[in-house]
């Protein structure tokens, strides 16, 4: 997630840039301090795990294996919420979304196209059911709390597809007010933070398998960086499944935004989409996350058998290190005070939203995995 500072009263186009842009400066050197900080926090997280395990073993403690993912996020959180993140680090730290994309593209080598098609197809059904049920409930809850129709739409888009990216993509299309966009983002961020820390222990408590948990995280957690972190907090295998399911969700962004844009345009409250299938296809393509193509391309190369063992190992290594920088970025961009300042209503809607989305998606995962026996044999 990107917990960026948003003032509901700000009304200009720069908001969009600060909410979503990965590359915020035209000068390459501006990125250096922040990227070094990401590396430092990530490496510190990695060594903290090793240190923790060594100390626990040495003193015969029975302690949970606190993964490097959690350490990197916690160290990042500690820095941002105590001394704060100096603006010199900001451009580099915001590249964590880029490292996430690098990690996902490289992860393509760990999946054969057949598995992607199979999991993509099964998770697509789950995503559509989840979106319909959870989206409807969120629209009803938002209305019950007196939130505007467009804020309800933004929350439904954010929770059903991919969090902040989807909200930003929908912002212009449904001509939402900046205040609504800020509230929706705050709610999604709060939801992501709660999900990140709540889902992995819950998954262990319920006794989910790696596959089931990966599916659950991919369906229930909204921002791709947090989905990845949540999955990897459970296990490496769960992390990979979560990334794949989330990428399928991300691929649907254009369709969902188009649906809401058409709804609001029909009510005369958004710009009309040009008539014809070609214009709608162009709209969907414009919103399509292009890194999914990179993931598929690398997977196709791996499926064709063009990668040696050494090359596949190199890609796995790149993926792990890139994700480590992402997790450091998640912690460094999460300002708890900012989330708290946004007000109680988006937070309540977020908690209800999380509970609804997590329950519906868990029900779907258990139904499809334990009753219908859908899934991968991996």
């Amino acid at each position, binding site marked *: 997630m990107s917990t960026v500072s948003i003032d509901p009263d700000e009304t200009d186009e720069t908001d969009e840039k600060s909410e979503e842009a990965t590359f915020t400066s035209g000068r390459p050197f501006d990125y250096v301090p922040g990227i070094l900080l990401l590396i430092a926090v990530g490496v510190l997280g990695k060594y903290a795990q090793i240190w923790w395990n060594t100390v626990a073993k040495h003193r015969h403690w029975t302690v949970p294996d606190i993964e490097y993912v959690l350490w990197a996020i916690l160290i990042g959180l500690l820095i941002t919420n105590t001394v704060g993140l100096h603006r010199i680090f900001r451009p580099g730290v915001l590249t964590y979304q880029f490292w996430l994309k690098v990690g996902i593209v*490289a992860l393509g080598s760990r999946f054969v196209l057949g598995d992607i098609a199979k999991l993509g197809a099964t998770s697509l059904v789950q995503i559509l059911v989840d979106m319909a049920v959870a989206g409807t409930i969120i629209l009803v809850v938002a209305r019950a709390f007196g939130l505007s129709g467009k804020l309800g739409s933004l929350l439904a888009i954010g929770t059903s597809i991919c969090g902040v990216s989807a909200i930003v993509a929908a912002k212009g299309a449904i001509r939402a007010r900046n205040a609504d966009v800020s509230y929706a983002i705050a709610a999604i961020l709060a939801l992501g933070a709660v999900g990140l820390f709540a889902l992995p222990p819950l998954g262990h408590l319920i006794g989910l398998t790696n596959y089931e948990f990966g599916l659950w995280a991919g369906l229930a957690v909204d921002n791709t960086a947090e989905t990845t972190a949540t999955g990897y907090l459970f296990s490496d295998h769960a992390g990979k499944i979560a990334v794949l399911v989330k990428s399928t969700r991300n691929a649907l962004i254009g369709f969902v935004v188009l649906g809401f844009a058409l709804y609001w345009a029909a009510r005369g409250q958004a710009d009309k989409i040009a008539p014809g299938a070609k214009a709608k296809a162009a709209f969907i393509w414009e919103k399509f996350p292009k890194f999914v193509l*990179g993931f598929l391309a690398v997977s196709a190369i791996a499926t064709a058998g063009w990668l040696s063992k050494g090359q596949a190992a190199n*890609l796995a290594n790149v993926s792990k290190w890139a994700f480590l920088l992402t997790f450091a970025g998640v912690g460094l961009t999460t300002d708890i005070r900012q989330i708290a300042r946004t007000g109680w209503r988006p937070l309540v809607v977020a908690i209800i939203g999380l509970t609804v989305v997590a329950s519906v998606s868990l029900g779907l995962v258990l139904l499809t995995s334990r009753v219908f026996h859908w899934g991968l044999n991996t």
Partner: protein
Amino acid sequence: METPQWRGWLERVGDDWWATLLAGVIVALAVADALPKIPW
């Protein structure tokens, strides 16, 4: 001051494509064994 043509072209490509292209370059370097080996 006028924006140079190349700068306008870079901006038109968009963040998402840039991130994907750069990711592709890093992946290609890893496949070519040209990245420093940092053990996990």
